[in-house]
């Protein structure tokens, strides 16, 4: 079948299934006898394998099949769910992931690892159990699949079945009540008309039933005719049936072989087009071929429908995120044009135009909010990934840690979520490694042996606060200061509050660990976190109580594409500051300048606030006005002022990425196009402040 298959449909599904699989496995570890969970684990693998084979991911299908075969034993109750099984299955899950990654252009999967996993799994499962007797009851009990499956029902009534008053067609119709049926009558047993006893039944059937019912339900239908017919019910899309599954499922020849309708020698005599030639060669009756073809088709249909059915349940439409990005870009353009329209209509002062402009403004805002909300994803899926991390790392370090989460349904822009993973991994690793103590140490200080890490997300205005809180040993500000001085990050005479000292953990090259572990102590950890969060226009705050625990709070914007900004001017050049960071605006008069004795500080209601004169910072030409405007912003928990010529006002800012030409300057985090078509640069306040601090660190110390 030369179908053009879009493999991304499979990979997307597979990645999703892999996260589900991981979740289910972790849950299963808690409740190892939960059959429903076991079923879920099995189904996830089954689907990955089935779709994998269909989409040509043979390596995925082959490996998954091996794992699934072992897990099937758990499903049928012959293999207990142990930690060992879960560990191996988790490892297998990771292996599947790396095979997938490899197919996506990632590094090649480690095949030796795959072999190890499979060997481990096989070692767990009991040796080939005594050949399973074809006991109907047993087979029926263990083949109760969830979700629609395809059964092949071979119904061969005895010729005299009519004399018991039985109408076989009614039984077949009853099968239709269980699901959708493909009925193929096998009529090659019909004698010539002359020899036919018209009161006898010569017809047999192969019925392909796609149903959610189990084998028992099918057999129940035939209960009255148990002795008057031969009934063979077989689940077709069982895992073990697809061990050689290729893109189209089983080949016709395989099906005929497996069904015992033909032997290998006969099959070898003929080649494709198999069906016709089998019939022409007189090897297989035409209706048998037809039944086999029906089987092939029904099974394929069923397998193709499974993913789409799953999607229907949630009534969710899958859209590539690139399409969404495009939409967001277009909305951005629209917002920009709308700003121009507003400006023009304001200048022209035409009532009609203004009415339309207002309406467009209204609609644009709505469109923007709706579009942004499409890109919003619950952070839960990110949270779930950490369960595994915590589990693995704590085991590795001999610690007992429980991860709890709250606010998993808090929504954030997809781009933010995507970039949030690594920083959170670092923070959590750090908590596990440096925060939570070993059970003995915990008990020694009267804490429960199991440490807690709580991961929470909560909305706060246009931001989301994500917090990682542990009940570990807390940060020692004294020690932090000392280390920072030793490492040359801090001058020996610097005066830091405890709160400020906590933030030192994010300084480049700072590590308080006594030894470097492979968990978090790579010495690059936390400053990378800080950089990532800042590139997301977010901030980090650390709170800690010695001996009680530490909490690290990330404050992130809901979206990266459009923000509310404050538009300011130096000369005729515009800049934008994120409005969320702005606290107030004050004027800087020549008197204030005189009072500050050349230092860049301003007195705001008896509070001394340092400021940066943007004109000087960027070496812009021209005279500064007599009265300057200082915008006071909250940068990393500190109030910092920025001096501009004028403050224009609030501005809905569609953020454009800066091209390579701005590579040298990371004090700008983007740009936006203004209503008149000119460009305004978006200031990265945290970076600006840090650069200035570096330059005048002694001057800015203490506030």
């Amino acid at each position, binding site marked *: 079948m030369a179908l053009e298959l879009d493999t991304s449909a499979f990979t997307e599904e597979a990645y999703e299934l892999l996260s589900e699989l991981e979740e289910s496995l972790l849950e299963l570890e808690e409740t190892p006898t939960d059959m429903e969970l076991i079923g879920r684990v099995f189904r996830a693998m089954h689907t990955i394998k089935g779709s994998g084979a269909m989409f040509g991911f043979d390596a995925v299908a082959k490996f998954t099949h091996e794992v699934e075969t072992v897990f099937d034993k758990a499903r049928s109750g012959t293999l207990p769910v142990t930690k060992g099984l879960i560990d191996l299955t988790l490892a297998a899950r990771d292996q599947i992931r790396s095979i997938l990654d490899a197919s996506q252009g990632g590094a090649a999967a480690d095949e030796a690892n795959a072999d190890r996993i499979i060997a481990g799994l096989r070692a767990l499962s009991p040796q080939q159990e005594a050949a399973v007797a074809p006991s109907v009851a047993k087979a029926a009990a263990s083949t109760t699949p969830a979700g629609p499956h395809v059964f092949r029902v071979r119904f061969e009534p005895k010729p005299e079945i*009519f004399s018991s008053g039985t*109408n*076989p*067609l009614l039984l*077949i*119709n009853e099968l239709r009540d269980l699901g959708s049926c*493909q*009925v*193929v*009558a096998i*009529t*090659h047993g*019909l*004698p*010539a*008309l*002359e020899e*036919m006893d*018209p*009161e006898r*039944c*010569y*017809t047999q*059937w192969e*019925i392909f039933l796609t149903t959610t019912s189990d084998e028992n339900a099918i057999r129940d239908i035939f209960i009255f005719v148990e002795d008057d017919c031969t009934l063979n019910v077989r689940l077709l899309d069982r895992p073990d049936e697809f061990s050689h599954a290729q893109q189209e499922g089983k080949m016709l020849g395989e099906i005929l072989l497996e069904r015992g309708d033909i032997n290998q020698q006969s099959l070898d005599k003929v080649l494709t087009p198999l069906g016709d030639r089998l019939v022409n060669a007189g090897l297989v*009756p*035409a*209706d048998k071929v*037809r039944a086999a073809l029906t089987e092939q088709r029904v099974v394929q249909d069923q397998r193709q429908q499974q993913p789409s059915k799953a999607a229907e349940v949630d009534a969710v439409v899958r859209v590539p995120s690139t399409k969404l990005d495009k939409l967001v870009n277009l909305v951005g353009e629209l917002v920009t044009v709308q700003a121009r329209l507003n400006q023009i209509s304001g200048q022209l002062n035409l009532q009609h135009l203004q009415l339309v402009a207002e309406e467009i403004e209204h609609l644009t805002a709505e469109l923007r909010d709706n579009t942004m909300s499409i890109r919003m994803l619950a952070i839960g899926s990110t949270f779930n990934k950490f369960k595994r991390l915590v589990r693995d790392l704590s085991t590795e370090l001999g610690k007992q840690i429980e991860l709890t989460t709250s606010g998993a349904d808090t929504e954030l822009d997809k781009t933010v979520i995507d970039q949030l993973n690594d920083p959170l991994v670092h923070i959590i690793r750090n908590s596990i490694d440096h925060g939570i103590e070993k059970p003995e140490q915990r008990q020694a200080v009267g804490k429960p042996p199991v440490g807690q890490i709580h991961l929470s997300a909560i909305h706060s205005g246009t931001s989301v606060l994500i917090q990682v809180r542990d009940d570990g040993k807390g940060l020692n500000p004294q020690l932090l200061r000392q280390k920072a001085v030793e490492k040359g990050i801090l001058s020996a005479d610097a005066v830091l509050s405890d709160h400020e000292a906590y933030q030192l953990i994010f300084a480049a090259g700072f590590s308080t660990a006594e030894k470097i572990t492979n968990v978090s102590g790579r010495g690059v950890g936390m400053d990378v976190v800080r950089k990532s969060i800042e590139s997301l226009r977010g901030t980090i705050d650390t709170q800690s109580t010695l001996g009680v625990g530490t909490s690290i709070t990330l404050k992130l914007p809901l979206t990266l594409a459009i923000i509310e900004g404050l538009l300011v001017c130096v000369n005729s050049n515009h800049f934008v500051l994120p409005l969320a960071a702005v606290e107030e605006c004050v004027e800087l008069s020549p008197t204030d300048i005189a009072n500050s004795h050349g230092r860049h500080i301003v007195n705001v209601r008896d509070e001394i606030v340092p400021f940066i004169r943007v004109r000087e910072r960027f070496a812009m030409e021209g005279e500064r006005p007599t009265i300057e405007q200082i915008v006071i912003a909250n940068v990393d928990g500190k109030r910092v002022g920025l001096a501009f010529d004028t403050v224009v006002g609030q501005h809905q800012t569609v953020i454009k990425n800066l091209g390579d030409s701005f590579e040298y300057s990371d004090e700008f985090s983007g740009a936006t196009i203004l209503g008149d078509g000119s460009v305004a640069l978006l200031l990265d306040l945290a970076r600006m402040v840090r650069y200035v601090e570096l330059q005048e660190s002694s001057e800015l110390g203490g506030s």
Partner: protein
Amino acid sequence: MEFSRDDNGDAGHLVLSGALTIQQALPLKELLLRAGGEVKNLTINLEQVERVDLTALQLLCAAHRDWIKRGKHCTLQGNIPEIFRRVVQEAGFTGCAGDGDDMRLWTGVND
């Protein structure tokens, strides 16, 4: 249910009607045998069929097979009643065996 022949004996007309069920299976077989006798061209009319069961389908299938084998030309005359079509479909009689022998004669539709 009746079978008639044109005067020249070349063409036969088979009209099936009423209940084609197991109770009538024996007479139906006799009739079909007769219809397949000497004529070269056979028309079959099912318009008046009110009931049909598996035995009739088996007989018709075997008869059809027989006629084809003996080189008879069979054509369907008139409409096929819904009940007939439905039972054929329910029974999964999409075709018999061999070349040119399919149930289209009985259903008027492909597959």
